[in-house]
């Protein structure tokens, strides 16, 4: 899938990927790839600007860890992030239903 197609939905995807548990950047890419069965195969470097942006917005927080002997920045979703995710999920479901209705001709 084209990175441009994903761009408008990246914040929602990142929040959804971090919702179950904290993860570092590479793990987030893997979660997105696995959950989308390989469809979301974005240039991985573009993930970090988005992560930093939603961190600045208070939707996620991060800290350095070296549990496995390698220093990694681990991100976790905040309370504000969970509220934002719930709102975006509702909006997305409504949007997806509407698009499907138009494209597939379902009443």
């Amino acid at each position, binding site marked *: 899938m084209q990175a441009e197609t994903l761009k408008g939905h990246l914040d929602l995807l990142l929040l959804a990927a971090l919702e179950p548990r904290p993860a*570092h*950047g*590479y793990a987030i*890419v*893997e979660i997105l790839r696995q959950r989308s069965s390989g469809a979301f195969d974005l*240039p*991985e*470097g*573009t993930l*970090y*600007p*988005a992560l*930093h*942006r939603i961190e*600045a917005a208070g939707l996620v927080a991060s800290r350095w860890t070296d549990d496995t002997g*390698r*220093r*990694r*920045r681990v991100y976790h979703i905040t309370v504000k992030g969970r509220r934002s995710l719930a709102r975006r999920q509702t909006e997305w479901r409504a949007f997806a239903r509407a698009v499907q209705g138009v494209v597939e001709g379902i009443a």
Partner: protein
Amino acid sequence: MSASAIDRYLSCLAAELRKQGVFAARFMEETRGHLTDAAAAAQQRGVALDAAQQEAVRRFGDPKTVARRFAAEKNRTLHWILLAAAVTLGLAIAWVDSRPHWDDAGITAGLLLLSAGLLGLVGPRRPWLWALATGVWLPAWMPVHIFVQTHRIVLDPLLACVSLALSMAGAYAGMALRRMIVAAAA
């Protein structure tokens, strides 16, 4: 010993980030960790070390694009703050310069240079915009001020050229200084 594909990529990304005038030590460290993880995962699938590193950097994306996107995200909020500051400073300089008792063109020129320079230093991605937003008000204010006083339309193209040239020089000097600071800090 030749540098690995990851090291070469990181050097290239660092250079692109310096061009953008962005401090990004944390991002660089995250990128190194990401590429190391990605290469290790590829090796676990049986890919040779060199090929695994090359695959990791290819998947991360073109360094120029990554650096530009990082700089754009970092400066998104700052952009509007700087634009508002540029307009405010430009209007303030034009207003001060239009006062009847004010006749020091040197100080006005210095203020324009300094204001645009500071904006270019803080926001090195769009020096031309800070220059325009700062320098356009002086030549725009004068005709309005004269028209209100005398009901005559008097345009001064020389003032417009000098004002914009000064603000451009200031903003680009600020941008150059920022790039030098970032390069020295790297």
